[in-house]
């Protein structure tokens, strides 16, 4: 079973999903991310799905879960690079992924994370 690597960049974690994941792999990723957010005290998580040609309800729910878990752990998750065909299919499937932040690409995603973190700092949290 594949294990998706999680990279750390400052206060952010970076995940790039490039394989057609088995369900177990997705669950493993969710667990690994939760642990790592907690262990590193990361503020932000960037999940790059630009290589994913298929996002079904299982993966969709995993992304929503991770966003929720991260929020509880006081971190922001941004999912970047969703392919047009994937977006169209998700809409048709009926998954709107409410609560999951998205950005067009890594650059924009990082901007969002930085903005969120700056906001926290300003708010004096």
């Amino acid at each position: 079973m594949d294990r998706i690597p999680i990279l750390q960049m400052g206060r952010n974690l970076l995940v790039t999903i490039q394989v057609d994941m088995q369900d177990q792999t997705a669950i493993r990723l969710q667990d690994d991310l939760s642990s790592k957010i907690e262990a590193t005290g990361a503020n932000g998580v960037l999940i790059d799905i630009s290589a994913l040609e298929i996002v079904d309800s299982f993966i969709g729910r995993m992304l929503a879960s991770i966003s929720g878990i991260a929020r509880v752990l006081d971190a922001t998750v941004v999912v970047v690079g969703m392919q047009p065909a994937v977006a169209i299919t998700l809409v048709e499937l009926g998954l709107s992924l409410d609560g999951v932040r998205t950005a067009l690409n890594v650059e924009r995603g990082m901007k969002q994370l930085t903005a969120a973190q700056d906001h926290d700092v300003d708010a004096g949290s």
Partner: protein
Amino acid sequence: MNTQNTALEALLKTDRDAIVDEWVAEFRVNLSKGNVTHLTTEARSVLDALAKGVAADGDPARFDTEAWSPLRDALEAVSASRAAQGSTSGETSRFVLASKKPLFDRLQATFTKDATALAGNLWWLSQLVDRAAQYTADAYQRTREDIINRQQQELLELSTPVVKLWDGVLAVPMIGTLDSARTQLVMETLLQRIVETGSELAIVDITGVPTVDTLVAQHLLKTVTAIRLMGADCIISGIRPQIAQTIVHLGIDLQGITTKATLADALSLALKQTGYVVTRPKAA
């Protein structure tokens, strides 16, 4: 090689040019379109291809075999050019059938003394030309369908262009009735362009859309949801008062989508949202 094909081969070898001329003349007797030079070239290419099939001892009853491949190609070329010129299917198959006369005449001349052989040869040839005419008619149909499909596609694409209004701002002016096929195409094109240009804002302008019912609203909603899923946002502009009334009346929930009455308003908002400020320098 069977006797019928042998006889045909001989004919085609010795008399090809004359046969072509008579064929073209026969066709034009029925006064159909086409200039002589063009028709002659086409007739010649068909006859040459037919000769190849005969030399390969092809069987007219099995027109899809390898032997008749050059003939099929030649016939397809003829029907394609006729279709493009606007000839009808009937004219196209009539053209092929007109080849019978010159060929029949010559077979008669060859087999005056042998009625049985003549009958056999005429039947063989008749079958062959009939098959060829049928094939041409079918090919014609396919070509017309291809042309129509391509035109429909082009029309669809032309009527929904995606334009870049500004850095990071795309716009799609929708014109005409929004049906499923149209909206799909717009959605796909728009999403693709959003990714390609890295634009964070798309303005869908429906000034040119006459009516918005629940179905249309659903289509629009799906488009906006997909755009948001990808990490961009969408403003719908061109909402006329009547449409606004319909939306409220039908109880359509726009789910927090920003709407603007005009494209200008939408652009103004888009610029603001992407951090631009428009100023007018003082006149000197």
